[in-house]
């Protein structure tokens, strides 16, 4: 048997051992929530459950958004801390 096939055979044997030994764990990881816990994706991402309009002030009048001020084109977040610091990529 060539070395690569031997490697594949042993790797699969290892995976099967992991898989069969971990049935309980993998069920917990996917599909079967732990007892007493309701499955709810929104938990992991705050705000996603909000109705989009619930907190929005519908009384607001339309703004003319088509002529933005220059400041809207200038990043003012935490990236200013990174400005000029991140090194250009190597290789790729």
């Amino acid at each position: 048997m060539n070395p690569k096939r031997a490697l594949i055979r042993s790797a699969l044997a290892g995976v099967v051992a992991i898989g069969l030994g971990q049935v309980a764990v993998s069920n917990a990881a996917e599909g079967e929530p732990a007892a007493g816990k309701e499955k709810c994706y929104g938990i992991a991402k705050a705000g996603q459950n909000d109705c989009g309009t619930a907190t929005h002030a519908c009384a607001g009048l339309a703004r003319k958004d088509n002529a933005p001020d220059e400041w809207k084109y200038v990043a003012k977040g935490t990236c200013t801390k990174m400005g000029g610091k991140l090194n250009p990529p190597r290789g790729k």
Partner: protein
Amino acid sequence: MTVTEGLARLQAQFAAAVLGEDGAGFARHLAGDAGAGLRRLAIYRNAILANRRRALRAAFPVVARLVGDGFFDEAALRYGEACPPGGADLNRYGATFAAFLAAYPHAAAMPWLADVARLEWAWHESLAAADAPGMDFAALSRVPEGEQPGLRLLLHPSVRLVRSAWPVLSIWEANQPDRDGTPDREDGADDVLVWREAQRVLLARLAPPEAAFVDAVARGLALEEAAGITDAWDFTPMLQRLALHGMLCGFSTGDRVPA
């Protein structure tokens, strides 16, 4: 024109009036005087744009933090004009935001920004990806040795691989709510594995051969080909890691792509 066609046209005109520069042409369909009608249209416009903005902010919190509110809201507005939502589910809105940012001239000074957006979208997709039954390891154990090299493994629907020439994971981590935005690591090319486990989305930086292997498996290559992507590298630990974390959910033998 049938009644249905007439209604469809009226709805299209309404949509154009709400999102367009001005709805003057639509005013004749509105009750009351034209000025009041147009102000009411403007309320719709404002609500729609706000909802789009909020949807993007929910999907791209790190990008929003990186660039700040003014920049983000303006970019979101321009993106909405260029690529309006394709459906009513705003959780699916933003798939092309990274591509938009890559071409957005005002983001040119932040060449890594689009890749951060790609990572956030992968996170977002992973969270909402379908469930899938786990791998049938007993069946896998019965695959005859001669068919093992031709095995094609199916990754769980929540698995994503984001490959970047920039330290995107470092940037992402630095901009989580409990961090001040200063990356721990300022160089590197990050290949990030994204997957869902116990209903949480997890991220891990992969070494180049690991990423090449996962990429090959994701593309449906046979195990022998995927294992040969990088010479003199043992794919066993990476394969076991995929198994251990529930990232494998099926396989096929022969030429059939796993389904």
